[in-house]
């Protein structure tokens, strides 16, 4: 058990979140009254019907706390930001300019990083005797960089990305247990347990990235790999992409292969096992959160950083690229020391 108050809280029992004595109090039937220290808290995830009022939101805003709202099924509904936003017109203009002029090379670096990081994740299984995935690994390492080099239009680039992911899903059957088989990736709504895990994990990563981008001057809606016209904060989709294999998929593989997540124990039977139930979510969130907090020696910064800060540094790197023209390379697992 951790002896400290975490900087992120996930609330999944229905209840009321309120301001009391300049701090936070959560009341629910299940848990009674829980006092949450306001100092040190950075993010709140509301995963159920939580009652709160505008008085509380203005208090959270003063304390600089981001709130992510989810519905009962785990769909992301929106984010509440503290007011003191880091807005910079200059960066926004340059970002828009970069999007118009240099979108393809930037998008290609994202895809390159996805391929490199998937390679890193799957190599573990190859090393431990899974020879079936060898052709895919070779393709990722040799062919993908060459393909990306000569891309001229976005749709082609996206088809390479699609191909990377499709072949990645294909490899699952070689190292995941039978009941976690997946024929193809299905979203909105996911149609089997594995798809549900992927969707939920991606959503958490996506919102974490939103919180990290918030600390930079970048505009959340101008993206490079994804269409900037998407209704969502699409820059966050871009930046979270290279981290998906490292954080979301690794967590899923670990939990599923160690039988810490099981189909008949951690999924709602009523919905044909396509959504995680309460305990399933707890197990998954805790494992994902642990992984995001994992620290490693950073080569250039010469100190220990977590994956979560690595996401923020990627945003800084992108900003530097946009403003100062310094080459942008997303986080690569193999550069980790």
């Amino acid at each position: 058990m951790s002896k400290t108050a975490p900087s992120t809280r996930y609330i999944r029992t229905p209840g009321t979140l309120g301001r009391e004595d300049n701090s936070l109090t959560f009341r629910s039937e299940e848990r009674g009254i829980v006092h949450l220290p306001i100092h040190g808290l950075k993010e709140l995830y509301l995963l159920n019907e939580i009652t709160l009022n505008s008085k509380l939101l203005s208090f959270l805003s003063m304390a600089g706390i981001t709130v992510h709202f989810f519905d009962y099924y785990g769909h992301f509904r929106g984010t509440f930001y503290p007011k003191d936003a880091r807005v910079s017109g200059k960066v926004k203009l340059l970002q828009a300019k970069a999007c118009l002029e240099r979108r393809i090379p930037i998008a290609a670096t994202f895809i390159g990083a996805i391929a490199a990081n998937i390679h890193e994740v799957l190599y573990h299984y190859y090393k431990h005797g899974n020879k079936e995935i060898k052709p895919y690994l070779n393709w990722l390492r040799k062919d993908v960089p060459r393909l990306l080099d000569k891309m001229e239009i976005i749709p082609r680039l996206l088809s390479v990305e699609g191909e990377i992911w499709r072949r990645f899903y294909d490899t699952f059957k070689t190292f995941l247990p039978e009941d976690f088989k997946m024929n193809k990736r299905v979203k909105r709504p996911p149609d089997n347990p594995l798809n549900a895990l992927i969707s939920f994990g991606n959503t958490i990563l996506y919102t974490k990235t939103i919180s990290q981008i918030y600390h930079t001057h970048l505009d959340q809606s101008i993206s490079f790999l994804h269409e900037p016209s998407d209704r969502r904060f699409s820059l966050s989709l871009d930046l979270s992409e290279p981290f998906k294999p490292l954080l979301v998929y690794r967590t899923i593989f670990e939990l599923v292969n160690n039988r810490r997540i099981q189909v008949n124990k951690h999924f709602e039977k009523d919905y044909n096992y396509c959504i995680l139930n309460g305990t399933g979510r707890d197990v998954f969130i805790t494992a994902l959160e642990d992984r995001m907090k994992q620290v490693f020696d950073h080569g250039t910064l010469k100190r220990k950083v977590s994956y979560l800060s690595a996401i923020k540094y990627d945003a800084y790197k992108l900003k530097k690229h946009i403003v100062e023209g310094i080459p942008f390379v997303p986080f690569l697992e193999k550069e980790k020391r």
Partner: protein
Amino acid sequence: MAKNYNYVILVYDIGEKRVGKVFKICKKYLVHFQKSVFRGEITPANLIQLRAELKKVIDEGNDFVAVFKMTGDYVFDEEIIGARMNDSESLLL
């Protein structure tokens, strides 16, 4: 160089009149652990703030607050016997 403490255990004995005020201050910074015990991670800056807030409220002649300062939450272990009333430090609520 002075040490940077970033984990504390705080215990107090406060006159009845002021105990509520002290409780309210402590719960902003630390996790409530037992009736008059708080603990948890805290930044050096927040520790200074907490100390200043407490000093304003307590009667230094009669009240008593002790802060056990540690450099991290991994250098000790603890054992809990009996029921824990309220888990205010879990990631999931």
